[in-house]
């Protein structure tokens, strides 16, 4: 239980820092809304098109927002070498990873909760047909981005071009999770019963979360102590 106590202390500290400065939150929120707005103006998004591509448009905005959020995750520790104090503390690498992933996940959920109604207005979509199922997909997809992004944020912390390197490393690895989340979101926005392959896509998203969370917990200590 020590790991959970340490992780929650780190998550609370990160959220407190972020809500004090709003550096990542403001940037990610405005960026994702601008993406939705640009797509709404750039393409003739009729009801038929949106029911086929709505999930893609939405997760495109979420994925770009996630890079801005997770980029701050470890970058926040660079001024004053706070990372050294955290790594020399009794909190394990796994607790550090978990705490930072939870903070990024919660920030992403805040952004997504604001973007969803904006998406509904811009594209004239009824996105709340299956609210509980959609919430589950959003939460699972957000955890995948937060978890994967936190690992790459730790890996790129000392790189000069980390703002560029982070998305370049993170996006290809996220393809299975984002693809699942896009497909599931499309299904959930369409009227009528859910298609038979819904459960398959859901299994893929859950599997991705489990596999990469386990791998990250096991490997993060090696990344932090060089």
């Amino acid at each position, binding site marked *: 239980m020590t790991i959970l106590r340490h992780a929650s202390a780190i998550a609370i500290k990160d959220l407190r820092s972020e809500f004090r400065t709003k550096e990542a939150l403001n940037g990610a929120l405005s960026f994702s809304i601008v993406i939705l707005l640009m797509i709404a103006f750039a393409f003739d998004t009729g009801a038929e098109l949106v029911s086929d591509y709505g999930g893609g448009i939405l997760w495109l905005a979420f994925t770009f927002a996630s890079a801005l959020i997770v980029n701050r995750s470890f970058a926040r520790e660079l001024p004053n070498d706070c990372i050294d104090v955290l*790594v*020399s503390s009794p909190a394990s690498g796994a607790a550090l990873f978990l705490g930072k992933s939870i903070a990024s996940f919660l920030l992403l959920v805040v952004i997504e909760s604001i973007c969803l109604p904006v998406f509904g207005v811009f594209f004239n979509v009824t996105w709340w047909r299956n609210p509980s199922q959609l919430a589950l997909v959003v939460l699972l997809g957000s955890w995948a981005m937060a978890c994967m992004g936190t690992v790459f944020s730790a890996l790129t912390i000392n790189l000069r071009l980390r703002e560029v390197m982070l998305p370049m490393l993170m996006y290809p690895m996220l393809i299975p999770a984002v693809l699942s989340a896009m497909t599931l979101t499309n299904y959930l926005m369409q009227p009528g019963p859910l298609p038979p392959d819904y459960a398959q896509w859901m299994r893929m998203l859950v599997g991705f979360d489990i596999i990469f969370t386990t791998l990250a917990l096991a490997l993060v200590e090696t990344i932090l*102590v060089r």
Partner: protein
Amino acid sequence: MSQPAVEAAGVWKYFGDYPALREVSFQLRGGECLALLGRNGAGKTTLLRILAGLSGASKGAVKIHNGDVRASETRARIGWLGHAIGLYDELSARENLTAFGALYGVSMAAIQEWLERVSLNHVADSPVREYSRGMRQRLAVARAFVHAPDLLLFDEPFTSLDDKAIALLQSLLSEARANGATIILSTHQIREAMELASKVALIERGQLAHFGPRTEAMLGDPSYIYRTFGTAA
């Protein structure tokens, strides 16, 4: 004889092909204070980082209280103060100490006590970015001491402190030593370090050029150790 509090055995550290540390070996017992001296780039910070578990040795081994330095129980006993203050500018002094204290299970009463000891109680709820350099350094000292560590690893702790703050830090370190804590100080301010030190180490180009007890001659003459044991002076 009791177990050494700190033990470095044949420690090497390479950065690429460059050996930043070469075969460094020493032992310190509980309650001892080591002044780690050396020119810029000699390897003092690298050695301290390895002792704090922030970096791994390329060869050799480090043990703290006969335990692995990366073990959680070992790290809970270490107080680290590096070149930078290790504090969040956007948080207040109280929030900083609370955040770090939570990782060590420190009570709010202890945090309040340390805010008073470093005379920051009156600004405890203001963001650290509004503090002067000396106030930030005092808060960093409180952060390193707040969990009552029994091994203190301080890298240039006297830098940017005024006379009053230096006296405070020296009294805190003396008190910690009297309570059995082991201290390793890397510093260029030899006079201040010598007042506290029981042992002195001189590190040159990654090698220990000298390791031994502090003598009266070292206390009176800050450059004595470089003149007597140094080769690169």
